């Protein structure tokens, strides 16, 4: 059915001609022919220009952008920014906001690497925001479609903008063909748009608009996933180099600090007259001055004072300090100067009955003798009229007697009127009662504050203030070199060692997972992998070389270059000097702080010296192989507690030994597997002696198990040699094989030739092997000869006399624990767990990133498809028919 307009007469109606026509009117729809405009006014080129892609313009606009952003910020602040400036401020805000968040988070951790990683993370995120579209979208789009969808231009106002930022606002007339990538015809060719169609540029522009919009949409869709994933991967990749760089920088910084504190502690002036005021002494004197007028120090203030002075000391030193200081205050009021602390509380307490006799007469005392609060006040006001007893006051013996006399008078008044018999009894009771009061008042000694005490405590504070300042630097340096935190030298190289070990042994992710889950599996696969490596000369050499290199690098990082004096030695000497010289300074004050001195150094101050003549001796000390215990000046025990100085030093070498022992054990394990790879050479003499290789195989198997799994607490179970002392001795002698003709005092392990060759020729690496030999020799001397872990001590000891050469400290279970290091099986298990976690995270994030990239790239091949391509064909035909 046809539609009838309501006013069908309107639109179709033509006017009836009325004016005289001056010319013939030919219907305009019949007009034809091409109207060329070659001679006509052409539009002016657009104001502004495209930014060409080259390094010069990149640098130029980098600085221009910063300038513009600053201007925008200023205008934004003044409320005069335009839309474009506000848009730019969004980016500035993002960066500033990100920086603020990173800065805040950085303040929440003391770990420098974690702090730095907050900013690295932000940088990686911002970089990913910028790089992701460039790599995944812009470049492929340019290759596929022939133009840059991220093209920038300068508009007529001089502002930099993105050409395709708004698909409805594209300044196409800036594509003037100054470069091929800016020539619409060339772009059209790349898009495969026929040359001979009508209005080709229009189609090219439409395609550019469409492709850019599609790509921008793709960007928006994928950026949310890709940007954080990329940022995560980038941060992960940057972590190690940053860690290394930071460690290098910080190592240099702390080496300098060690040098400074070394010189400072070495040159400490021991004269008490040269001591200078410091913050600790200022605080302490301020407190004491407050009480000088009253002449005594309240007990609570003494506690406070000790807390301030003894802050950061260990318990033993702190106790000694407290004891010494208290004694100083108390002895100042002895003899004729004896004073007692008197206040309301003490006075009231003195009225309580303390002796059994008096307690038995309590009812009588309460009824006839006991003085009331009012009476107590009247006594005090009579004897000490101006005293403020709420704060207390020091009273001398005379004043004490006066108080007792006044109390007596009060009591006398009460009992005067009583019967003589009763009175006599009460007189006796009164005497006992008064004596009770006097005793109690006399027991409350005053902590006297006078000029002399203040002077000594002031000096003490100056000395300990200096000590603490040095100690603060020492502890920071010590922490950086040896603490457990991930950014420290030891921990950093432990991580490197662990990663290298895993890499060279080559585990799949599945294997890592199973190792993490099962100790048995860890042992099984480790044994298998080590056996394979032992049979492969090239692999073996590579593994050993790499691990030795890492240990050598760590030594270098710890001690400094081989050409200079060991930094750690200087650190230890600084610890010694700081304690020794502080103790000497305290001694110079008089005999006030003997306890403190002992707690700090526990040595004869007149003969205390540093005894590390050389780096070599110092390193021996670090590894616990100083042969003669009598040479050692570090005694760890003072009634069961080490001196403050020794504790700090022990902290260093125990941590050092704990780590290096784990490294050495891995190397020793490799060496054992290498030697065991040929049963004929492992122990030929024993094979002959016991008629066959089966015995040797048993030794090998037990040796492998031991080296992989044995620890200090369960030798018996691991070795399973309880009832076979001979086998045990053969096992130990083959497992910890010693060099022949070795110094009997300092035996050295004998390494296989392959291990020696693999370690390389460098001095540092050779030094590592030398220490490994020492380490093996020390284990050989101590572990099998220790009687603690074996039931049949004589059967299971190779040469018990050897132990006499080692000090007690070396023979403790803790020392053996440090010496044995971590079992390779556990080492692998821990390392595999960490590696598995990292790999899994990387595979998830990497998978996401790769998938997003793949989808992003593939999607672009579908962009820019021309709908109804037949229309183009038709236009070609139409055009050619004209």
């Amino acid at each position, binding site marked *: *059915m*046809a*539609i*009838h*307009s*309501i*006013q069908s*007469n*309107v*639109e179709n109606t*033509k*006017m*009836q*001609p*009325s*004016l005289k*026509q*001056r*010319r013939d*009117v030919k*219907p*305009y*729809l*019949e*007009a*034809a*022919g*091409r*109207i*060329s*405009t070659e001679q*006509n*006014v*052409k*539009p*002016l080129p*657009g*104001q*502004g220009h495209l930014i060409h892609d080259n390094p010069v313009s990149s640098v130029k606009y980098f600085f221009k952008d910063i300038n513009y952003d600053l201007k925008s910020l200023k205008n934004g602040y003044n409320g005069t920014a335009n839309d474009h400036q506000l848009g730019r401020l969004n980016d500035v805000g993002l960066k500033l906001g990100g920086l603020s968040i990173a800065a805040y988070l950085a303040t929440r951790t003391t770990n420098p690497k974690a702090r730095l990683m907050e900013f690295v993370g932000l940088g990686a995120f911002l970089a990913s925001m910028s790089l992701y579209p460039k790599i995944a979208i812009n470049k492929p789009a340019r290759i596929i479609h022939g133009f840059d969808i991220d093209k920038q*231009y300068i*508009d*007529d106002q001089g502002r930099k903008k993105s050409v395709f930022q708004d698909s*409805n*606002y*594209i*300044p*196409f007339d*800036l594509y003037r063909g100054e470069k091929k990538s800016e020539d619409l015809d060339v772009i059209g060719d790349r898009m495969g748009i026929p040359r001979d169609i*009508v*209005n*080709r540029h*229009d*189609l090219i522009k*439409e395609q550019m608009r469409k492709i850019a919009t599609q790509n921008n949409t793709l960007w928006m869709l994928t950026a949310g996933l890709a940007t954080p994933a990329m940022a995560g991967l980038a941060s992960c990749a940057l972590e190690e180099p940053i860690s290394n760089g930071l460690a290098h920088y910080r190592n240099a910084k702390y080496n300098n600090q060690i040098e400074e504190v070394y010189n400072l502690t070495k040159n400490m002036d021991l004269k008490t007259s040269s001591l200078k005021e410091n913050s600790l002494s200022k605080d302490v004197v301020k407190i004491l001055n407050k009480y000088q007028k009253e002449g005594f120090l309240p007990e609570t203030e003494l506690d406070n004072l000790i807390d301030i002075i003894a802050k950061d000391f260990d318990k033993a030193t702190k106790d000694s300090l407290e004891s010494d200081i208290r004694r100083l205050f108390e002895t100042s009021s002895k003899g004729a100067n004896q004073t007692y602390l008197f206040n309301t509380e003490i006075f009231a307490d003195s009225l309580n009955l303390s002796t059994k006799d008096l307690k038995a007469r309590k009812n009588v005392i309460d009824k006839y003798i006991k003085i009331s609060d009012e009476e107590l006040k009247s006594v005090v006001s009579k004897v000490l009229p101006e005293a403020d007893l709420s704060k207390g006051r020091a009273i001398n013996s005379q004043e004490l007697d006066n108080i007792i006399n006044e109390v007596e008078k009060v009591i006398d008044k009460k009992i005067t009127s009583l019967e003589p018999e009763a009175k006599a009894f009460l007189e006796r009771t009164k005497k006992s009662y008064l004596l009770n009061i006097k005793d109690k008042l006399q027991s409350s000694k005053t902590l006297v504050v006078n000029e002399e005490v203040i002077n000594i405590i002031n000096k003490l504070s100056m000395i300990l203030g200096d000590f603490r300042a040095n100690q603060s630097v020492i502890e920071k340096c010590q922490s950086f070199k040896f603490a457990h935190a991930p950014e420290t030298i030891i921990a950093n190289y432990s991580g490197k060692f662990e990663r290298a070990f895993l890499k060279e042994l080559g585990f799949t992710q599945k294997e890592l997972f199973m190792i993490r889950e099962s100790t048995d599996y860890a042992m099984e696969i480790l044994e298998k992998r080590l056996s394979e490596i032992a049979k492969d000369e090239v692999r073996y050499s590579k593994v050993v070389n790499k691990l030795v290199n890492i240990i050598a690098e760590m030594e270098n990082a710890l001690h400094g270059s081989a050409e200079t004096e060991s930094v750690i030695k200087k650190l230890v000497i600084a610890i010694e000097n700081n304690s020794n010289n502080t103790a000497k300074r305290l001694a110079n004050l008089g005999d006030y702080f003997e306890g403190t001195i002992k707690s700090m150094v526990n040595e004869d101050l007149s003969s205390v010296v540093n005894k590390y003549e050389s780096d070599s001796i110092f390193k021996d000390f670090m590894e616990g192989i100083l042969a003669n215990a009598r040479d050692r000046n570090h005694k760890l025990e003072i009634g069961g507690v080490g001196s403050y100085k020794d504790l700090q030093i022990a902290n260093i070498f125990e941590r050092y030994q704990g780590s290096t022992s784990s490294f050495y054990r891995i190397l020793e394990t490799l060496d054992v597997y290498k030697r065991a790879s040929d049963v004929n050479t492992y122990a030929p003499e024993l094979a002959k002696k016991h008629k066959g290789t089966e015995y040797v195989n048993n030794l090998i198997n037990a040796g492998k198990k031991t080296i992989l799994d044995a620890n200090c607490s369960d030798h018996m179970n691991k070795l399973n040699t309880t009832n076979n002392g001979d086998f045990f001795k053969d096992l130990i002698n083959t497992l910890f094989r010693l060099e022949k003709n070795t110094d009997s005092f300092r035996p050295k392990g004998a390494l296989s030739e392959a291990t020696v060759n693999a370690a390389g020729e460098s001095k540092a690496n050779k030094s590592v092997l030398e220490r490994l030999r020492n380490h093996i020799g020390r284990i050989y001397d101590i572990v099998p000869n220790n009687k603690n872990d074996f039931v049949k001590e004589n059967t299971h000891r190779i040469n018990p006399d050897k132990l006499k050469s080692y000090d007690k400290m070396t023979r403790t279970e803790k020392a053996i624990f440090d010496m044995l290091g971590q079992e390779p099986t556990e080492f692998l298990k821990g390392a595999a767990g960490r590696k598995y976690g990292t790999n899994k995270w990387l595979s998830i994030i990497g998978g996401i990133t790769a998938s997003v990239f793949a989808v992003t790239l593939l999607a672009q091949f579908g962009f820019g498809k021309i*709908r*109804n391509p037949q*229309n*183009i064909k038709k*236009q070609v035909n139409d*055009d050619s028919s004209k």
Partner: protein
Amino acid sequence: MIQVNSTIFRNDILNYYKPTFKNDKQAENVGQDSTMLTNSLNAMAASNVVSVKPALKSDFDYKNNLRTMIQNNESVMIAIAPRIFTAEDTNGDERISLKLGEKPGTFLSGIERLDELKNDGFNTIHILPIHPPGLKNAMGTAGSLYSPARFLEADGTLAIDPVLIDKNDSRTPSEQFKAFIDECHKRNIKVMIDLPSCASIAWFESEPELMAFGRNGEDKTPQGWADIRMFEPWEDETKRTLNPKLLEMHKQYVDACIDLGIDGIRADVARAKPTEFWDILIPYSHTIDPEFAWLAESYTYECASPQVNMPYDRPEDLLRAGFDDYYGQYHIFHEWKDAKEFNDYIKLNLDMSHRLPSGKSVIGSFLTHDDVSSMTHGGENYCNLTTIIQSTIPMCNPYFVDGFQSGDYYDYNYSHRNDTETVTYKITTREEFKEEGLEEIYDKPEGYQEYQFSPMDEDNDIVKIPHYKMEHHAFKLDIFNLSRKPGGNNPDIGRVLRETLKMREDNKDLFADRNSSFIVLDKKGDKKDQILAYARHNNGRTAVVIANKNPNRNLTGTIKVPGLKSTQNLVNMAPKYGEESRFQVAENEIRVDLAPSSAYIFEIDTPNIENDRKGNVFKQKV
């Protein structure tokens, strides 16, 4: 639910749209109720007669010089929409109800306001489009003025909206329009007609050869203007060859205009056609009438077009292609945050003039029919401020919109409500038709008769329904409906306008002459830079203009006027309005305390001011 008195409605529709046939027999065939139609027409004729003698051809000497006037900044324009120019809204509901006997404006009735315009100081009328609006999917109940059903009739004359024609006058529509033009010319008022940039949907469908299509056959609707479609000026834009049919139509349009004695064309959205198009059409017009003037609706340089399916705006290209003046940006004067932006814009135009043939100019477009009423920016005082500013700035032909003279807010109380009368219609789908509950009405036996629904086109699943909504752009002159005559409640704006334009006419050497320089004056104490201060200087005469841009508060400051003597007597050349401002003359400066939106013009004796303000003196190309 649509409630209409069907009989009245249909008759009114027919009355309104009865074609202006000379022969009533033709008309009889159009509507069924011819008796009623005739009666209605007779009734309207009785009240629509205008006592103006129709003129088939001009019987007086007249020569167009509009182009020269514009080049000399002497044209003072007012935009009018004829169908509302003299509309009679007897019941005060602001809309014109034909069924109630209210009358829209016609060309002939418009003549009665020409003396008023002349008296106000206008010498050029910009007539908004006169063509019959396309009614399909149109805006409002009368259709947009800028959505023409066609430009030309078959005989080459201008197509004229029937509503503009006095049905009781025996003259043809063209003759009636000619009569109006002649009356303008008799009063030395130039006539500039509005050439719409686009076509209505009905026209788009009927003459696709003229229209722009996407590569996949889709129409091209300028973003935001749903009732119109783009012409296709190109045959091949890449090769820059033009659409011969469209160009020919525009040539015939120019012919028709010049035949009627029209003095110039205001090209709506001039950027819709390319530079080359205008560079052919405009010179063509000059071959017939060298004084035929061209005003481009063009605002400012755009890097790219923010409007889909519409090219970017490039005023300079349009002026190079032959336009004599363009709209410019004064319509955002209220948004400029300080005097610097104002001065910079003037300088930008003066600078551009030197890259163009001399005489190119801008209109004082502080208010156009596309802008919200100046009243909304600061009331009466703000309107007066814009009058004085545009009368005193260089390179400017003042421009106003009908209604401004008395402060019309263009705030119609029927806005967006439904009317019971309409000529526009929508094509909707059957489904939408059902959703709106209209099917029920349609299904009644009297459905079509009652509600004027067209029968359904079941094959195409579409329904045609009347469009009753009186769309209107808030605070803008209504171009979509039959509305009241423009006008507000602030007649003093008209006084200020008259006196200002008179003052300008008397001092053309200062304010219109291209030789008159524009001198930016320094200030101090005007922290927010809200005081406009400039001088015009020509032939030794200097006028200084001082105005407060802020419509809300007084401003104090000191205007530096080099060469000014402390004895200078300040006499305001501009009409007085608003609150009092205070001035104090000192050596080389004027200290001011300006009332909100106040503006003053003082002639001062500073013959050397151009030398004294070197570097701040700007001139239009002479």
